[in-house]
C-alpha cells in the first residue's frame, strides 16, 4: 500500500515535470501569503547622487536606499519566496530576464531567474556603469557598460543569491536570485506572494530578504487547494 502511494507520487511528479517543459502547466496547489516584519526596521537613508548630475536630476526628492523595503501593514517588499526543497530542478526557460539601470538604480532591485536562464542587463542612463556581481559559487566577472551600448547577456550555472554593485556609483546596489526551479515569487505591494501550480507533495518554502536572511516553512500540498502561510522577520533598527 505504502509502495503504491509512493509510486503514484513519483508518476505525478514525472508527469508534472515533463509537462512543465512541453506545454501549459497543470493546475495544482497554491501556496500564498504575506511577508511581514516585527520591530523597528532601520530607517533607509536618502541617496546622495550629486556626484552624478545626470542621474540626480531625474529625482525631485532623493530616492531611498533599498536594503529594507517596507509597505503598509508592516509588510516587506522585494523578498524572494521560493520552493527550496521538494520540487525538482527545472530546465531554464528560453525568455531572458531583464535588469535595467535607470536613474543610477537597479530596476528591479531584486531580479530572480533560473539556473542557466539568460538575463540581459540594460543601461538606460546617460552615464557609464560597470556591472559587478559578487557571487561566491558562480564565476565573478565585471563589465563596463557606457551609455548607448547594447545589453550585456549572461547566465549563471549555480543557484545562489548574488549582490550586484556598480563601482563607479557606490550607492547602486541590487541582487540576483538564481533559482533551481520556476516556483518563486518576489513580494510586491503589501508583501504578498503566490506560488501556483504546485503538484501534490511536501515542500519547503523559504523567504529570503537581503538584510534579514532567510526563513523556511514546510507545506504539504495534496490537491488543488491553496495554503496560506506568513513569514515574519525580526527587524533590526540598525
Amino acid at each position: 500500500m505504502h509502495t503504491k502511494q509512493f509510486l503514484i507520487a513519483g508518476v505525478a511528479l514525472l508527469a508534472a515535470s515533463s509537462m512543465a517543459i512541453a506545454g501549459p502547466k497543470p493546475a495544482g496547489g497554491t501556496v500564498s501569503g504575506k511577508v511581514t516584519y516585527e520591530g523597528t526596521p532601520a530607517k533607509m537613508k536618502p541617496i546622495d547622487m550629486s556626484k552624478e548630475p545626470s542621474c540626480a536630476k531625474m529625482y525631485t526628492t532623493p530616492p531611498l536606499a533599498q536594503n529594507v523595503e517596507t509597505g503598509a501593514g508592516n509588510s516587506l517588499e522585494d523578498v524572494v519566496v521560493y520552493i527550496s526543497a521538494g520540487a525538482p530542478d527545472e530546465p531554464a526557460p528560453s525568455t531572458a530576464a531583464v535588469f535595467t539601470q535607470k536613474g543610477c538604480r537597479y530596476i528591479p532591485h531584486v531580479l530572480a531567474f533560473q539556473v542557466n536562464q539568460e538575463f540581459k542587463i540594460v543601461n538606460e542612463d546617460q552615464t557609464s556603469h560597470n556591472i559587478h556581481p559578487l557571487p561566491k559559487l558562480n564565476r565573478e566577472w565585471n563589465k563596463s557598460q557606457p551609455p548607448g551600448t547594447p545589453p550585456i547577456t549572461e547566465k549563471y550555472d549555480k543557484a545562489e543569491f548574488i549582490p550586484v554593485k556598480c563601482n563607479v556609483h557606490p550607492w547602486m546596489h541590487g541582487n540576483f536570485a538564481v533559482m533551481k526551479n520556476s516556483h518563486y515569487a518576489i513580494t510586491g505591494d503589501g508583501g504578498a506572494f503566490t506560488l501556483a501550480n504546485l503538484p501534490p507533495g511536501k515542500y519547503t518554502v523559504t523567504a529570503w530578504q537581503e538584510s534579514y536572511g532567510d526563513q523556511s516553512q514546510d507545506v504539504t500540498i495534496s490537491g488543488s487547494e491553496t495554503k496560506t502561510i506568513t513569514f515574519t522577520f525580526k527587524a533590526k533598527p540598525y
Partner: protein
Amino acid sequence: MLNIKKVCLNVAVTLILPAFAMAQGDQSPAAKPNPNMESHVGNLTGHSKAGGDLYYRYCWGCHGARGNGDGENAPYLNILPRNFVAAAFKCRSTPTGTLPLDQDLYNSIARGFNFTNMPSWAALTAQNRADLVAFIKTFSARWVTEKPGDPIQIPAEPALTVASIKHGGELFQKLECWKCHGQEGRGDGPSASTLTDSNDQPIRPYNFTSDNRSKCGRTNQDVYKIFMTGLDGTPMPSFADVIKPEEAWDLVHYLRTLQVNNSSPELTLWESTPEGKEIVAAKKVRNTYTGSGIIP
C-alpha cells in the same frame, strides 16, 4: 507486474531524493578539486606535488594552508592575499570571469604585484614557478570543471601618431575612465575614495603619474590586456564589449602620455606637440598631495 512496480519505484526515488537533498545555495556535490594538477608554460611542465613543497615553504604564510588567503600574515596586509579557492585572478589574458592561462599565473609569480605585499619570485627557477602554478590549481574545483578562457586577440600595434593619442584621450572621456582614475590619471576621480575589492577592502585606482608600473606588467600589450580583460576581484571592469580592437590601441597610446614621469615613445611624441607640451608640463607640478613628489 512486480518488476514494473520496482522500476517505477526506482524512478520515483531517483527523482525525489536529489530534490530533497539539494537546498537552494548548496554547492554541486560532484565537483572536487583535483590534488594532482599539471601546468604547461612554454616547454616546461609543472607538477603540483613538487609545487606543494615550495608552496608550504614560501607561500602559505600569506596565502594560507588551504589556499584561501587566510595565512597568519594576512590580517596585517593591505590588499589581502589571493584566495586560490575562489580562483578569481587579476592578471589574465582571458576574458573577465574566466580562468587564466598557466602562462598568466606563471608571469604573475615572477612579476609580483606592485602596490601589494606580493613580491617578485623571479629568484625561483622557471621550473619552480611552473610547479607552483600547478599546485595553485589544486585548491579550486573550477580547474576541474572549467577550462581557461580563450585568450583575447590583440591585433598588431599600429603606428604611433598624435591623432591616435588624441583619439585615445576622447575614449578616456567617453568611457568615463576618469570617474575613478581622475582627469589627469592621478587615481583621484570622484569615485576613487569609495572603491572596494571583492574582499570588501578599500582599493585605490592606478595613479598613472606615480612613475610605477601597473599591477599586470609594463608593456603596451599588458596595458591593452588590463582594460580589455578587467582585473577580476577589483573594481576595474572589462571593456572588451565596448572598445573596438583598433580603438583600444589609441587608448593605450593615450594612457602612456598620462605616465608623465615615465619616459616612453608616446610621451616623447606628445611632448613634441605644443598642446601636449603644455599639458604634460602642467601635470608635472610637484608636491601636490597626489603628485609624485619628485622635484625636476
